[in-house]
């Protein structure tokens, strides 16, 4: 494991040479599969995720018989990590079905249910399959970004139905990992971004930006003894951000004091804003390339 001091040493730069608020390079490809209704491939640094969306379609199998919720569509998420995906080098036993993947699937489902307008798809099902090809930190957030792009590719309307104010649920899991989910919803894309707090009490006097949390953490930074928050926000075009995020905390050890949360939130939303701009640009570029001739007559009038 990397020592915390190592990270602070390099003139305010992070181990991979980024500044505190700098994101990794984002590369996006949409429509990578012909068979699926929508698909996207996204790279954020060395984290590489492939997402496919099928649907909305008639529910099949066990979900189809469960007709308890007729008025709304069902979202079905499956998060799986390829056996070769871990950057530490070892192979994963099972690509899916273990605790971590199940939890990720559930968290992804919550995020997706928040942005899909399920009321217009009664009795149908939307399947979202996420495959992590390479994991180098922030994989949950990257998969949320990828899933958003795949939904756009599938032509599924993305919008917000509820406007709830901060619901903070605190549940102390095991010994030190704090998990809280704050939900709030704004319009537009669901964008995930991580922020890591690198605790180093020695540099109190300096106005060190690294100390207040770094954006888009990679694997090394996630391993440091700090708290990593994966935040899914639904940022607006203009930065009038209201309270609306899904926060997942995964920390190696430390608790996060609530007083630090506000400043972390401000940072992470700033990162989400940047990612949104990048993704929006990618969507626009993809659509311009793909325009069908049948759509041209529409544009003329």
């Amino acid at each position: 494991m990397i020592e915390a001091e190592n990270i602070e040493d390099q003139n305010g730069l992070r181990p991979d040479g980024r500044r505190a608020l700098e994101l990794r390079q984002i590369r996006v490809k949409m429509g990578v599969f012909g068979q699926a209704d929508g698909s996207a491939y996204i790279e954020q640094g060395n984290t590489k995720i492939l997402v496919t969306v099928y649907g909305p379609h008639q529910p099949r199998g066990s979900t189809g018989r469960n007709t308890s919720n007729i008025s709304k569509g069902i979202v079905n998420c499956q998060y799986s990590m390829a056996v070769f995906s871990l950057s530490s080098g070892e192979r994963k036993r099972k690509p899916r079905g273990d605790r971590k993947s199940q939890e990720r699937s559930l968290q992804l489902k919550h995020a997706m249910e928040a942005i899909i307008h399920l009321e217009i798809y009664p009795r149908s099902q939307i399947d979202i399959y996420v495959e992590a090809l390479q994991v180098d930190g922030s994989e949950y957030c990257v998969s949320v970004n990828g899933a958003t792009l795949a939904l756009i590719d599938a032509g599924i309307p993305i919008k917000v139905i509820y406007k709830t104010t901060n619901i903070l649920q605190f549940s102390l899991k095991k010994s030190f990992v704090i998990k809280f989910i704050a939900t709030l919803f704004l319009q537009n894309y669901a964008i995930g971004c991580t922020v890591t707090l690198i605790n180093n009490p020695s540099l109190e006097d300096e106005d060190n930006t690294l100390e207040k949390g770094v954006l888009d953490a990679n694997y090394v930074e996630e391993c440091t003894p700090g708290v990593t928050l994966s935040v899914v926000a639904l940022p607006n075009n203009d930065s009038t951000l209201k309270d609306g995020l899904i926060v997942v905390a995964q920390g190696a050890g430390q608790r996060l004091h609530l007083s630090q949360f506000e400043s972390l939130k401000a940072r992470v939303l700033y990162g989400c804003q940047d990612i949104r701009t990048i993704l929006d640009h990618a969507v626009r570029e993809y659509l311009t390339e793909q325009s069908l001739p049948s759509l041209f007559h529409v544009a003329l009038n």
Partner: protein
Amino acid sequence: MEEYPPIIVRLAINRIDLNLIKNENVQPRIYTPGEEISSQPDFLRGHGTYVDDENTLRASVAGVLEKVNKLISIRPLKARYQGEIGDVIVGRITEVQQKRWKVDTNSKLDSVLLLSSVNLPGGELRRRSAEDEQTMRRYLQEGDLICAEVQSTFVDGSLSLHTRVLKYGKLSQGIMLKVSPALVKRKKTHFHNLESGASLILGNNGYIWIGANKQDSDRSEGGFTQDLSRIPQVNREVCARLRNCILILAQCNIQLTDTSVTYAYEESMKYKINELLEPEIMIDVSLLTHQRLIQQ
């Protein structure tokens, strides 16, 4: 030992963008989710849009704007099939239920084909007895392909089909293809007998049927009999070539009509059938077809 054609392997980096035929001078305005369309309150909200707290109309899908008087909607470039009454569709039976079949038609929900809206052997005015209900699987079973027309739509968006005209019914001896529903425009006729000897059904839902035979005239049995006689090699090759041609047109986003398919078929004659799946040849065929379509 038979001679197999050589296998061609190419790297992803050598991939060719097939979407060459673009209208450069007209670039449609593209909206992305969350983009503001209008802040004036006097517009009606259509599909693919929503109104936020500040009464601004925003897009919820990525696509192009469609405006009918005051109704504004955003049409996504790729979406599931949205049925309309009178559409000709090709579908596959997924389930046999009481008095109805469920049909997969590429729409958001499975469509319904009622027992009362099919022609059973023995005349139009035959009563449906309980016996008919028990022998439904004899007429159509899971996995069968049918061609039908949309009779009505339900509130939840699912479709009710009928096959009361003799040209509709069960399909056999041919190839089914799935393309984007946007490529098939609603036309007067969707059944075509091509000069090459094959029949073509362009389903509005994006399912294309290439039949090996000309549409046979004998449909007195309600179209449930399957002709399983052997198809000669020549006809099979025609079907395979047609399939590859339609794939080329679909990949290059050219509208599928009987003329475009015939042109592509004619332009492809200088190549072997299996060569038609190679990107360079796909581009060649699509460009030649596009040229001829423009000259019209």
